[in-house]
C-alpha cells in the first residue's frame, strides 16, 4: 500500500473535500464498470456503486492500510453484486417457477449481434465464478493475486477459472462465426 494512498485516505477520513473527490475520481469508474459488467444494468450498477462508497465512507476512519483500497472496493462491489444476483435467482425460483426466461440464450444472441455484442453475451453466459475471474483480470486489469483476493479463492483456482472462461469464450465466438451468413 503506497504512502500516497494512505495519506489520501487519512485526508478523506478527516473530511477534506479534495481528498474525497480525489478518491472518487480514482476509484469510482472501475467500481461502476465492475458492477455494470456483473449486473448488466446501468441503474443497478449505479446503486451498487453508491452502496460500495457508503461502506467506504463508513470504514475510512478505521481504515487499516493492510490491503490496497482498490482491492477492498472491488471485493465489496463483487459481494454486493453477488447478493443481488442471488436474490434475483431466488425470486425466479420462488415466485415464478412456471416462468419461462425470455432472455436470449448466448447462442441465440450470438447469432443476432455483432461480434462485440457476441462477446458480451458470451461473458454473460459464463458460469458466475468464471465471469468474475475474466471480468476482474481481463477487463478490470487486476493482477491474478489481487483478483484471487477479491474472489477469496487461491491463485491456482483463479488461474483455472480464467482458463475455463477463455476456452468458453473462444468456443462461443467460434460458434458465432459459424452462424454468420
Amino acid at each position, binding site marked *: 500500500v503506497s504512502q*500516497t494512498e494512505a*495519506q*489520501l485516505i487519512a485526508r*478523506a477520513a*478527516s*473530511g*477534506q*473535500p*479534495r481528498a*474525497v*473527490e*480525489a478518491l*472518487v*475520481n*480514482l476509484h*469510482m*469508474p*472501475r467500481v*461502476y*464498470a465492475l458492477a*455494470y459488467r456483473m449486473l448488466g444494468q*446501468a441503474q443497478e450498477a*449505479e446503486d451498487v*456503486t*453508491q452502496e460500495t*462508497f*457508503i461502506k467506504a*465512507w463508513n470504514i475510512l476512519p478505521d481504515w487499516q492500510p493492510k490491503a490496497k483500497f482498490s482491492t477492498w472496493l472491488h471485493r465489496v462491489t463483487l459481494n454486493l453484486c453477488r447478493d443481488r444476483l442471488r436474490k434475483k435467482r431466488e425470486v425466479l425460483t420462488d415466485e415464478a417457477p412456471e416462468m419461462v426466461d425470455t432472455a436470449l440464450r448466448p447462442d441465440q444472441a450470438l447469432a443476432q449481434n455483432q*461480434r*462485440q455484442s457476441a*462477446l*458480451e453475451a458470451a461473458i454473460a453466459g459464463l458460469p458466475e465464478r468464471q465471469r468474475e475471474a*475474466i471480468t476482474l*483480470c*481481463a*477487463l478490470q*486489469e487486476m*493482477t*491474478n*493475486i489481487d483478483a484471487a483476493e477479491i474472489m477469496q479463492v487461491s*491463485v491456482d483456482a483463479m*488461474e*483455472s477459472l*480464467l*482458463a475455463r472462461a*477463455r*476456452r468458453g*469464450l*473462444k468456443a462461443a*465466438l467460434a460458434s458465432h462465426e459459424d452462424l454468420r451468413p
Partner: protein
Amino acid sequence: MTPERLLTLIDAYGADPLSWPEVERDAGRALLTAKPELFQEALANARALDAELAEMRAFTVPSGLASRIVDLAPQPEKERPLTRLKNWFLPDGQLWPAAVTAASLLVGVMVGYSAIGTETALPTSEADDAFYTALETDYSVNFEEIGR
C-alpha cells in the same frame, strides 16, 4: 519455466506477457524467445480473444454519479473555535495536557526561531496542490462520462 507451464499461462492469461503473473513473466518471455515455434499456435489463438477483450475495456460512466457519491461522504464536524480550543487544552477538564502543550509550544518556538531562513517546505496550499496533482490519473483513456 517449462513449455507446458508457458502454454498454461497463455491459456489462462492470454498472449501478452504483461498479463501473466509478475513472478513468471521474465522466465516466460525468455522461453518464448528461445523456442518461439512451440507457442505460435497458442499465441495466435489467444491474441484474437485478447483483442476483443481489450475493446471491451473502454467504459462510460453516468454523468453526475461522482458528485452524488461525493455528497454521500460524511461532512467534517464544525466546532466553534472556542470549543475547539477548550477541548484541545482541557480534554475532559484535565489540566495536565495544557501544561504539556504549553511546554511543547515553548520548545517549538525556540526551535522554529533558530531555523528561520532555512525553511524549504512548500506553503500548505501549494503542497496540497502538488499532492493532488500527483494523484491525477488519465483514466479518460478507458472511462468517459456520459449524459444519462
